């Protein structure tokens, strides 16, 4: 895949801001826009890390962003989502903020990986999101601020 940073030197694609190695992208909370945001992240970072690391980054972000779309803005008009990824000595720091509903109990879901049911008809068809996020990330935090939510985490990936 072509490295987006290379393409960007031509100044043709200035939608995402790059300042001091940071990636910023703002969008409205809907599944199509999440898909586009993830595509931009992968295009941006894939040339700096292994496919496995890029896959981990995409999966962790997808689960947090899907949660914002499905639960954060549940019962509300889809509102803004801000995604910021910065590089540091300990890896990539990711921050996702939105202006949707607070997390229940003002805390992150526990996200225990649910046991696999013995019978097919009892199998869950969801509920893996936070368990995967917790397994894939480090330093996961949630803050409820001025009518906004902010989830942040670190991935121990050092981009090239």
């Amino acid at each position, binding site marked *: 895949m072509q490295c987006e940073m290379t393409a960007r030197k031509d100044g043709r694609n200035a939608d995402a801001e790059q300042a001091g190695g940071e990636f910023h992208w703002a969008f409205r909370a809907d599944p199509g826009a999440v898909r586009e945001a993830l595509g931009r992240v992968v295009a941006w970072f894939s040339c700096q890390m292994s496919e496995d690391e890029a896959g981990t980054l995409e999966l962790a972000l997808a689960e947090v962003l899907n949660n914002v779309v499905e639960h954060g803005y549940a019962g509300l008009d889809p509102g803004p989502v801000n995604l910021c990824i910065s590089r540091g000595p300990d890896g990539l720091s990711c921050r996702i903020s939105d202006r949707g509903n607070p997390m229940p109990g003002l805390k992150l879901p526990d996200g225990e990986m649910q046991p696999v049911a013995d019978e097919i008809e009892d199998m869950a068809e*969801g509920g893996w999101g936070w368990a995967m996020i917790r397994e894939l990330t480090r330093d996961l935090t949630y803050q409820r601020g001025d009518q906004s939510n902010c989830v942040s985490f670190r991935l121990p990936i050092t981009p090239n």
Partner: protein
Amino acid sequence: MNLSSQEVDGAIVVHVNENRIDAAIAIQFKDRLREMTNGPGDRVILDMSRVDFVDSSGLGAIVSAMKFLAPTRKLELAALTPNVSKVFRLTRMDSVFPIHASVPLQGAGNAV
């Protein structure tokens, strides 16, 4: 939602001609798969070779497909790419589905 199917030795092989099964298309995927697996045959094999990303919504759609095919028919998966394989491993769903390394008799079956 681009799925195609062929019959291979009595099994329905469904090729997922999309590179993602994610929250944006999970419902269409589930509905389309249900339509395509109405025919006879006790095995449905999902060819995942072109899919390089599945999130928990996509996984939920695959589990849902397994549930509506049961108890008479079994859903099996073939040719998981590394990132997709990781999702099945993390959620332990790799212990639920028979997973084949490659798509059986790819290209040799009769198109339906």
